[in-house]
């Protein structure tokens, strides 16, 4: 069976290492915060200018001056810091954030990503997504493998306007965990019960299947 949003988030959370500064995008990436492994301390960066984002506040502690990049009211953890937008993107562009997790419409074999604009639909803007993908070394995309019509979102070449070129190296889908290497998707892990043939059928871009593909396990 294909993975739930929660399962995708929990698999990605296994990539978190102790001491990581992490930026989680809006949507499924946000759920990763719920699955931080035991014994691993991470600090969440919110690009509006908060390092050390905590949970949502209570009715008593809610504060209009304390929001995250999704404009939701949040709290700051002990040891947090707060700074300007320029400082925040200096951290991001300067490669100081250890891991960025974000969603996408399409990814291709060259690591290009399209995530902000569908021509013909109203364009709302890229927010911080272009800055986040441009310079980060370690980016994980979380998305469904195919759209609701069954069309692959892992392409030979992105069809939508790009958010960034040549920047994606790891992809978590509802069917598989893949890396992007030398102009191809490389299958690393399959979702439980999902066949390699199904993944092959739903991957439009070049797919390499090594001998040591593993099946994910979830407790």
């Amino acid at each position: 069976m294909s993975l739930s949003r929660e399962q995708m988030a929990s698999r990605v959370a296994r990539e978190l290492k102790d001491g990581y500064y992490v930026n989680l995008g809006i949507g499924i990436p946000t759920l990763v915060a719920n699955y931080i492994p035991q014994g691993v301390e991470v600090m969440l960066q919110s690009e509006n200018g908060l390092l050390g984002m905590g949970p949502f506040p209570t009715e008593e502690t809610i504060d209009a001056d304390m929001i995250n990049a999704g404009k939701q009211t949040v709290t700051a953890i002990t040891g947090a810091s707060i700074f300007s937008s320029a400082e925040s993107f200096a951290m991001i562009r300067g490669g100081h954030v250890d891991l960025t997790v974000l969603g996408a419409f399409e990814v291709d074999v060259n690591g290009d990503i399209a995530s902000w604009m569908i021509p013909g639909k109203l364009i709302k803007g890229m927010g911080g997504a272009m800055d986040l993908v441009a310079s980060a070394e370690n980016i994980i995309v979380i998305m469904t493998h195919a759209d609701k019509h069954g069309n692959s979102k892992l392409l030979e070449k992105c069809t939508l306007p790009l958010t960034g070129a040549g920047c994606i190296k790891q992809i978590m889908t509802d069917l598989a965990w893949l890396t992007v290497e030398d102009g191809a998707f490389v299958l690393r892990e399959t979702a439980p019960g999902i066949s390699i043939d199904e993944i092959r059928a739903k991957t439009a871009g070049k797919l390499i299947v090594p001998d040591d593909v593993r099946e994910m396990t979830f407790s």
Partner: protein
Amino acid sequence: MAGFDKVVPDYAAAMAGLEDGMSVIAGGFGLCGIPEGLIAQIKRMGTTGLTVYSNNCGVDGFGLGILLEDRQVKKMVSSYVGENKLFEQQLLAGELEVELTPQGTLAEKMRAGGAGIPAFFTATGYGTPVGEGKESRCFNGVNCILEDAITADFSIVKAWKADRYGNAIYRHTAQNFNPMAATAGKITVMEVEEIVEPGELDPTGIHTPGIYVDRLIQGTFEKRIEQRTISASGGA
């Protein structure tokens, strides 16, 4: 006003000199840390043809959104404008121009503008629609595009506290774009929750030094919340 005292008597004085066709940089992220009273004053003045640089354009009926009601904005330069129906209508009707700019690039454009840097290279936007028509260069194997700095006729910013000299501090994430915005206006107007006497704020803790601030006014703020997210248990 005498010496370094930046305090102005009222909102009319705060925004005096703003004319049709001018440019305005506004601090704030969503509805957080926006100069509510200064925006209201621009609406009262009825100034039109404005080019506004701000990360967002408020919501319907609040924040910069109120300047759309009387079509005061000609062009908006923002990273995200998805919260506003009137914005959408005017955009689709061709009554409003929008230039979408990546959030970090927008912040850096303001920072550069205030710091006397006319332009800078960044990897952000290379190979995307943002990079089209812009000069590009490769540095250490990274493709970059040249982005121009932003300055404007006016900057309107919101801080928490400032002394009469304009030395200011921001509160929590209401800081956001405000410090950069404060540096990049020919005339920078700051609206604060509290004006204190010089010496009351610790000089080491100042976020925006008073040299950037031309006019200072104390306002009252609604601080409307855009996404009210609550956790009874304290978990996200």
